[in-house]
């Protein structure tokens, strides 16, 4: 530190907006990493907007079989005319099903991730900080859950929760909870590992020496420092959650077509269409799944690269003389303000 920083020179404050997780990384990125991040953000943004404004965008309802005049849509109508993307074998409008499906997907992601983050973080924090037999038991349970194939576990959970079939809200909740069961161990392990590391940091010991209570140390000093990797895990898990949801729907453990639109269910219905040359019933829901997963994964991977200073690319240093590094030097001792 040179003296200039110690004088009353106004400090450059980073505004709250610039410190927000994704915004901060966007400003930091350059080149290919920036391209990946922006592409991911655009795709994810379109997905979010579609989900939020589905009732306004979709031409028909997700379970609508007839238009306003009471005329039936007809099954497997090719794209064009009143049905931009055609209709399914069940007589639903494909475009509307795809748009409404984004709403279901978003709902499941939000519920699943929120549930698993809260449970995983609290369990990980307690397990890592307190340690002892509680820690061992929780780690063994988490490992056991890890050992199961995730889809199988989700199926079991879905059956146990809803008996396999249910309404919109019940269906979303069932799918979300079954995904939660699979993802709690992931958050648990990450937070526990960070907690164990932070537990031996000098600032935690210093809090102990001061006489802080265990709860205060856990929540004020450890928790906030342990959650740095969460946005990353959050995005990666969201894309996995969509895949799990689609898998459940495809296997028939999802939500009924009359309760909500669900991409995996639509794919399942279109299996027989594929061989008879009816491509529009399978391509569009499939494309929706691929794009959303791609978008969220791009965001997650870019965040991952940007979070690691060794993977982060920077603008090349220019050859023009840059300011010399501020070093701690003899000047350190001379305080102008004291």
């Amino acid at each position, binding site marked *: 530190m040179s003296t200039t920083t110690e004088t009353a020179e106004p400090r450059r404050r980073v505004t709250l907006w610039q410190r927000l997780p994704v915004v901060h990384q966007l400003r930091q990125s350059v080149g290919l990493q920036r391209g990946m991040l922006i592409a991911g953000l655009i795709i994810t943004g379109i997905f979010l907007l579609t989900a939020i404004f589905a009732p306004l965008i979709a031409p028909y309802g997700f379970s609508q079989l007839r238009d306003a005049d009471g005329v039936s849509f007809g099954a497997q109508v090719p794209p064009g005319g009143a049905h931009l993307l055609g209709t399914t074998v069940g007589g639903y409008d494909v475009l509307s099903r795809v748009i409404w499906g984004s709403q279901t997907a978003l709902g499941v992601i939000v519920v699943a991730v929120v549930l698993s983050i809260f449970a995983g973080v609290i369990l990980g924090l307690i397990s890592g900080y307190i340690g002892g037999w509680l820690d061992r038991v929780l780690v063994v349970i988490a490992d056991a859950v890890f050992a199961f194939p995730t889809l199988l576990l989700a199926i079991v959970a879905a059956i146990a929760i809803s008996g396999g079939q249910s309404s919109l809200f019940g269906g979303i909740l069932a799918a979300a909870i079954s995904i939660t069961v699979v993802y709690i161990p992931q958050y648990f392990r990450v937070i526990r590992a960070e907690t164990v590391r932070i537990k031996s940091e*000098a600032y935690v010991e210093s809090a102990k020496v001061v006489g802080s209570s265990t709860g205060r140390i856990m929540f004020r000093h450890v928790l906030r420092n342990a959650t740095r990797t969460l946005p990353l895990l959050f995005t990666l898990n969201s894309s996995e959650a969509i895949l799990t949801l689609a898998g459940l729907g495809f296997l028939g453990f999802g939500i009924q077509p009359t309760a909500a639109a669900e991409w995996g269910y639509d794919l399942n219905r279109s299996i027989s269409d594929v061989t008879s040359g009816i491509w529009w019933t399978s391509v569009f829901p499939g494309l929706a799944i691929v794009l959303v997963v791609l978008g969220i994964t791009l965001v997650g991977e870019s965040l991952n690269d940007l979070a690691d200073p060794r993977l982060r690319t920077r603008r090349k*240093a220019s050859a023009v003389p840059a300011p010399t590094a501020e070093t701690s030097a003899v000047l350190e001792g001379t*305080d102008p303000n004291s």
Partner: protein
Amino acid sequence: MTRVVDISNLDVTFATDGGGVAAVDGVSFTVDSGEVLAIVGESGSGKSVTAKSIIGLLPETATTTGAILLNGREVVGLTGEKLRSIRGTDAAMVFQEPSLALNPVFTVGWQIMEGLRAHKGVSKKEARAKAIDMLARVGIPDPEKRIDYYPHQFSGGQKQRVVIAMALVLEPELIIADEPTTALDVTVQAEILDLLRRCRDEFGAAIILITHNMGIVADLADRVAVMFEGKLVEEAPVAKLFASPEHPYTQKLLAAVPRIGTGGARAKARVDARVAAGTVNTDAPVVVAQDLVIEYPGRLGRGGFRAVDGVSFTISPGEVLGLVGESGSGKTTIGRAIGGLTKITGGSLQVLGHEMLGIKERAFKPVRSDIGFVFQDPASSFNPLLTIAECVAEPLIVHGKARDARSARPRVNELLEAVQLPRTFGDRFPHELSGGQRQRASLARSLALEPSLLIADEPTSALDVSVQARVLELFSELQKEFGFAALFISHDLAVVDMLSDRIAVLFHGRLVEEGTGSDVLGAPQHPYTQRLLASLPVPDPAEQALRREQLHALKAAE
């Protein structure tokens, strides 16, 4: 004498998140064969970057301009195969931390032969013979057998010898030693410095020695280059530099080096002041250790590790006890036990009238407000997400002296001023402060509740010399002002001497010597203390040469 390195007008710029930062700015110097050039400077002065640019070890974010001639060959801009051919054969590197520079899954012999295989294409048998010869020459006993040992089977000093053998095996003209002894104990450091001296004399190698320790410079260097903020501010033969430093920065740097024998007068003045005030030995001691034993539990089926073994000492109110010892001597463990961070397993330890053997956290909590603790590493002793003011306010809040950080702010401002930090620093985050400033804030936090006992665990060992001098001065001023008793833990005899009323020397968990500074340092009784004292390099080339002789005599006598 041939010219090995010729650097002219070297600039190195790093790309960072905040734009380009110039780490080295227009540096020029030369090194001849059989010569030791010491590059001295504080952290961030660009000394390591300069040396690393000679063998192209800088990360991709660095942009290098200027000319570096190594044996007459231009190095800047070399890549791939050409760069690889000069590494090891023309120039080799000795790293700071020997345990990190050796690969733990290969034998040391394999690692020494690696360089031979990469460059010379010798047979396995020849390579092995050469490696054994090299180990013998760097002073590893029984090299035929130990060539097949793994790095963890060697001590720290021996590991550094192996690293030096790896550097020497291809007989390079230049050895770059980047803080080669910083991670080692003082007594081991002296041996490694002897070995490097032999590298120069027997192998005729040129050595670039990077260090921040002026004692090592006086011991080993022929010429000294002083770097400050990326620039070379002074270059002179070693005798001239120490006798008549020209640049103001060099003068300040030399003045800041702690020297043994300056503390006696201060300690006497302090004792006199206390006798005059009539407080000496009138109160019960704040810490009494009686046959203190601390064991760390071993693995199942194995005995525990005895870190502290039958140590007895007392600390009276207002007294500073300096605890000296090398790594693994148990000094930090004792400090942690007094602070209630480590449980004691035997003997008796009374802290402020509370017996620590088997004490419950609930019973000890009220006592904690009377104990301050300053940690070694200023980088990690603050919660990175809280401001300095919030961190300093923590003890006040926890002990109910303030409701929240805002209401504690007036007191926090007072404390920051006491440690000579501007009060606006309270609004900054820890990473926005330099190491010395953070350590001062750490002092402020430990003094927040006006404790009667302060434990300082190597508070200055991570700091630069000039910063260290400032923090030590502050410490002694605060001690005079607040009158707390203190346990000052350090591996550096000179630092302890500056501050302590009494000095205790630990060796392998046992207390080998205890007394006033002038007793322990003036006339050491125990052989270990004598060796420790003789191993400490002093920042004066002529005196250091004498001391080196004494150390050799002392070793020969053992």
